[in-house]
């Protein structure tokens, strides 16, 4: 008999480590106040849960549905997004329902990114973009958001791209740029002018845009979420990705969607039919019902799309205040439910920690063990070149119930007392 020769394929070489696997384990201890992973601990709206309970009792809804998306769900999505985009969206050809927004990112990248292509990724970035691009045999090309106020950042709006630097990243091999707005982790909501700069380059270089807009409804006062696909010349080259988990605070439902022109979506559908094929039926039906309810009240402030962001805005403000009272300078996000903060001002000396990890990784692990508070290190969201710049930041998630934020408050208030 031959010796066992089977190891992993080249396509996943080096993609096995994962910040979530690492930090979720560490923060799993229930005595730790977990502001790390983006996991709402608030309750989803009751009608969403009720719809699912109703649906589970309907026999045929426990069996397979249409592979590319349950008919009532794609119909509901087309209604909502037609209104938002101001254009006709065909539910059967312009939409694909996937297992989470992750599934949409995966289907898009597998469908449209070729081996040897380049894909521009804006740093910091949601961590899965890089391994997904690599798994397709393509090369990630990074460009950082930079703090234009050089150290005195009060707002996510201070973090900007340098247009000349961005233009230099585009070349004939650039297949796509991945855009994330509202942005995780900084919370930046790209302005129309900023989107126009990106759009102009996409059109000039005939590049696709993969627009991750999972936090589209979570924008705070004074800000507006703009879909890059609505800019002239962009609909035909953009895939826009959304998420039920973020829209309805049900991350465990794992339903997402891609919306775009038929001639692009059809390729995502081919990947989908050859991977997962179809998504769970009862969850899709319940989501369709929930969308039906909120679609009817899109002119009403009680619509969940708006009420959730109002609820989160006050949590954002509370989180910011707690961090400021602890002597920190958080970057106030214009959108999303994350907040980053520069912890270098605390001068916590971790040079004796004998690990080759960046400072923020060491800081978070120290904070978990000694302060019982968890967050996520920002260098997890960077390419190799920029890890040094971002290793003084950590990311807090504030979509948490009041008692969680109360517990965080106690820790932060006592922070200085403990170290004194």
């Amino acid at each position, binding site marked *: 008999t031959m010796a066992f020769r089977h190891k992993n394929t080249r396509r996943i070489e080096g993609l096995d480590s994962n910040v979530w696997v690492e930090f979720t384990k560490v923060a799993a201890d229930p005595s730790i106040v977990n502001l790390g992973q983006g996991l709402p601990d608030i309750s989803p709206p009751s009608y969403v849960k009720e719809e699912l309970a109703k649906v589970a009792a309907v026999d045929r809804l426990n069996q397979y549905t249409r592979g590319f998306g349950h008919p009532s769900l794609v119909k509901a999505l087309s209604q909502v997004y037609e209104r938002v985009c101001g254009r006709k969206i065909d539910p059967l050809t312009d939409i694909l329902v996937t297992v989470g927004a992750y599934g949409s990112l995966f289907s898009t990248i597998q*469908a449209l990114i070729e081996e040897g292509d380049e894909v521009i990724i804006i740093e910091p970035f949601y961590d899965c973009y890089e391994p997904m691009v690599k798994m397709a045999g393509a090369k990630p090309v990074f460009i950082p958001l930079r703090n234009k106020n050089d150290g005195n950042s009060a707002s996510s709006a201070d973090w900007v791209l340098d247009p000349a630097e961005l233009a230099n990243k585009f070349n004939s091999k650039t297949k796509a740029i991945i855009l994330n707005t509202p942005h995780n982790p900084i919370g930046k909501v790209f302005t129309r002018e900023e989107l126009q700069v990106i759009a102009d380059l996409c059109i000039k270089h005939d590049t696709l845009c993969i627009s991750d807009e999972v936090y589209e409804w979570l924008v705070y006062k004074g800000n507006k979420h703009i879909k890059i696909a609505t800019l002239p010349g962009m609909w035909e080259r953009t895939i826009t990705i959304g998420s039920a988990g973020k829209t309805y605070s049900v991350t465990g439902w794992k339903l997402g969607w891609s919306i775009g022109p038929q001639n692009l979506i059809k*390729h995502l559908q081919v990947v989908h039919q050859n991977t997962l094929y179809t998504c769970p039926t009862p969850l899709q039906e319940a989501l369709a019902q929930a969308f039906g309810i909120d679609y009817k009240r899109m002119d009403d402030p009680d619509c969940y799309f708006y009420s959730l962001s109002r609820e989160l805005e006050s949590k954002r403000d509370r989180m910011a205040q707690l961090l400021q009272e602890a002597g920190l300078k958080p970057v106030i996000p214009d959108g999303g439910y994350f907040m980053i903060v520069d912890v270098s001002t605390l001068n916590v000396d971790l040079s004796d920690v004998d690990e080759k990890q960046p400072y923020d990784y060491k800081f978070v692990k120290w904070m978990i063990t000694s302060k019982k508070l968890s967050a996520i290190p920002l260098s997890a969201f960077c390419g190799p070149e920029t890890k040094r710049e971002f290793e003084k930041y950590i990311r807090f998630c504030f979509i948490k119930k009041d008692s969680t934020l109360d517990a965080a408050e106690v820790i932060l208030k006592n922070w200085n007392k403990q170290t004194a």
Partner: protein
Amino acid sequence: MLRRVGPSLRHFLLERKNSAGYSSYSGEAKMSRPVQARRLEGIDKNIWVEFVKLAATYSTVNLGQGFPDFPPPDFLKEAFVRALSGENHMLHQYTRAFVIIIEPFFDCYEPMVKMAGGMPVFVPLRPKAPKDGKLMSSADWQLDPAELASKFSERTKAIVLNSPNNPLGKVFSRGELEVIADLCVKHDVLCISDEVYEWLVYDGKEHIRIASLQGMWDRTVIIGSAGKTFSATGWKVGWTVGPNRLLQHLCTVHQNSVYHCATVAQEAVAQGFQRELKLYGKPESYFVQLPKELQQKRDWLIQSLDAVGMKPIIPEGTYFLVADISEFKSDVPDVPDSDEPYDSRFAKWMVKNKGLAAIPLSAFYCGAHKNNYNHFIRFCFAKEEATLKAANDILQKWKREKTNP
């Protein structure tokens, strides 16, 4: 002994110029290249997209796509409701190389292998003539051991095994599995064992897991499905079981593709399994009740088909059976130069004209072999009594029309 390293077939293909004469890596304007990735080449067609639409449009009785039209068991639905209504609202949060494929095969194996840049190598189950006057059994479809052995080479990475087999319903015997296992061990080949129908075996037959054979645990990934186990195909919960040194790589793919599965569905399936664990082997076990119920439905459908002259092959397992429609050929004349296999034209004609949906067997063969067994269609019998009776009515009426036109 180390595996010989040579240029993979995939890289060879990449170096070739495409049909337009452009080199794959030219810096030509992107407008002249297709927008989609090369890995999608040739895998865009899909039998289900086509036939599910047809059934939805025309059929009154759908014995085509494989899903039960009876509900999941009450205990499972209750588990789902319990999982939903519990105080824990956190349940709504965060869960080229060659591959041998045995024909007929569940259709997705081929495009999935191709999408990974692998090369499918097909080996057919061949039917032996049944004893005079008897109906054929799925056991009569067998691999030729010498033919199978000839398909193994140094470049063979894996074999995909599906037992109980969709579409035939074949349950591979211990002897048959040993032949496959011996070759896997001899050639250091992995076994991808699709056992989604593992609980659906009839006539007292035993489902044997190839991973339990000598030398096989370390090289086998076993695949299971809640949809088939608990008659809840719409929940889309499945699993892989195997040694960590193989599973760890599946985890890497998983964390970089979908990452989690729906939490509440997993919780409900877990509760379903807890119940079954307590009742294992007992008559009230769903794993005992379901095959008992399905065997009866199998026998009804066999009787219906036999009575009208369609020749069913008796399946040893799964909830599918395949029937020979040769005697009905007069209804659907042969078209000599047609691209489409005969059984596919027949199945389409049948759903449009008789309202009865089934799937052509050629859907389960590779392109080159689609005409090898083109007078069979597959029926799914995981259906309510009323559905099977309605199918019988259609068949009886059809037969009467043939004898008295």
